[in-house]
């Protein structure tokens, strides 16, 4: 067993880029405190690398050659791809874990035809989480992407299988690994409806996720998700993959719909690692 931590968190660019505009500073500070607890949990786990299951936004992958799943096996990465002043995160280099990531990739390939990449420019989807979880950029990162942006998208039942493959791969290596999914529940990011949040939908999905209710989690159609949770809701694929990889009870450590300036229902989660699997 080498998966020592599993969690999930929101990654919206407004979390850093528009933090200074936020008027509900009390809720914002509660969120920041939850992120700091997550950082501490990862540090306390003794993790030697952090797998980030992300839903990137056309920084590396485009409709010319779009992988459903991709894993980074590079020596180093760089980010953010966005204007650093806009995102309010300085551009930097981030260490990778090429040997470890390659071994994980070989194992994942036993059941999922994952693509791999030695080049990867991190966008806000990874940089915002790292800004809080590894602020010194001193922990090797293994980026993983699930295409949640450019339809056709991978079916949810394949995200479930991918989560199983991630766990099996983690268990196949001796290194201690932490894994976080970054994404959003309901949100309409970067559109005129930015800031809209469907709290009822969010809490229903997140409740099902904490209990790992497979039938319910796999029952969401993209049409229903789009209607109820916006295009951003497609990112539930990353949360499902992480919850499945962990296999245990989920804990919703922070959720609020009261920070629409961040344009997402803001979430911090931790998943128990099921060692009986």
């Amino acid at each position: 067993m080498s998966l020592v931590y599993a969690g999930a968190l929101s990654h919206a660019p407004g979390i850093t880029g528009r933090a200074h505009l936020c008027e509900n500073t009390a809720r914002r500070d509660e969120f920041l405190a939850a992120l700091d607890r997550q950082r501490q949990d990862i540090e306390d786990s003794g993790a030697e690398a952090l797998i980030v299951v992300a839903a990137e936004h056309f920084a590396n992958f485009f409709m010319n050659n779009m992988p459903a799943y991709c894993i980074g096996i590079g020596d180093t990465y760089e980010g953010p791809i966005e204007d650093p002043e806009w995102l309010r995160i300085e551009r930097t280099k981030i260490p990778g874990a090429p040997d470890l990531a390659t071994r994980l990739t070989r194992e994942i390939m036993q059941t999922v035809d994952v693509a791999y990449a030695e080049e990867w420019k991190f966008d806000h989807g990874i940089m915002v989480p790292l800004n809080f979880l590894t602020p010194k950029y001193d922990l090797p990162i293994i980026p993983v992407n699930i295409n949640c942006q450019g339809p056709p998208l991978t079916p949810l039942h394949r995200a479930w299988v991918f989560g199983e493959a991630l766990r099996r791969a983690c268990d196949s290596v001796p290194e201690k690994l932490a894994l976080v999914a970054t994404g959003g529940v309901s949100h309409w990011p970067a559109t005129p409806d930015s800031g809209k949040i469907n709290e009822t939908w969010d809490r229903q999905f997140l409740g099902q996720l904490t209990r790992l209710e497979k039938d319910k989690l796999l029952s969401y159609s993209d049409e229903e998700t789009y209607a109820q949770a916006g295009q951003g809701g497609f990112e539930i694929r990353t949360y499902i993959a992480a919850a499945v990889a962990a296999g245990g009870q989920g804990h919703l450590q922070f959720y609020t719909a009261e920070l629409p300036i961040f344009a997402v229902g803001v979430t911090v989660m931790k998943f128990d690692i099921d060692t009986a699997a």
Partner: protein
Amino acid sequence: MSLYQLQKFLYVLNRDEAAQRKYHSDIDAFIGEFDLTDEEANALREGDIGLLYVLGVNGQILMHYAALLGIEWFDYLDMMREGIEKHGPVRAGVYTMTGGGASFTEEEKNR
């Protein structure tokens, strides 16, 4: 309509510093590398966020382009709403079902 080419232009521009230099030094030459309609090319020359949104550019690409142009967040949202008002509903892409937008934040209402 060549939404793929239009988004490809912005995808390349957003992630490639050499492309950004070319965009600023000779935008017509850069535009000429893509198979774009006159309407699309003009929207890019003018940085017309509203029209680009109506043409179907994904917001995750458009948002980064707006940041590259130095457009402030709330102005970016306004430009998309004005685009819908001026040009009608989104014509293609994943947003064809998206509404015209309203203000969902106190910060925007209070600015």
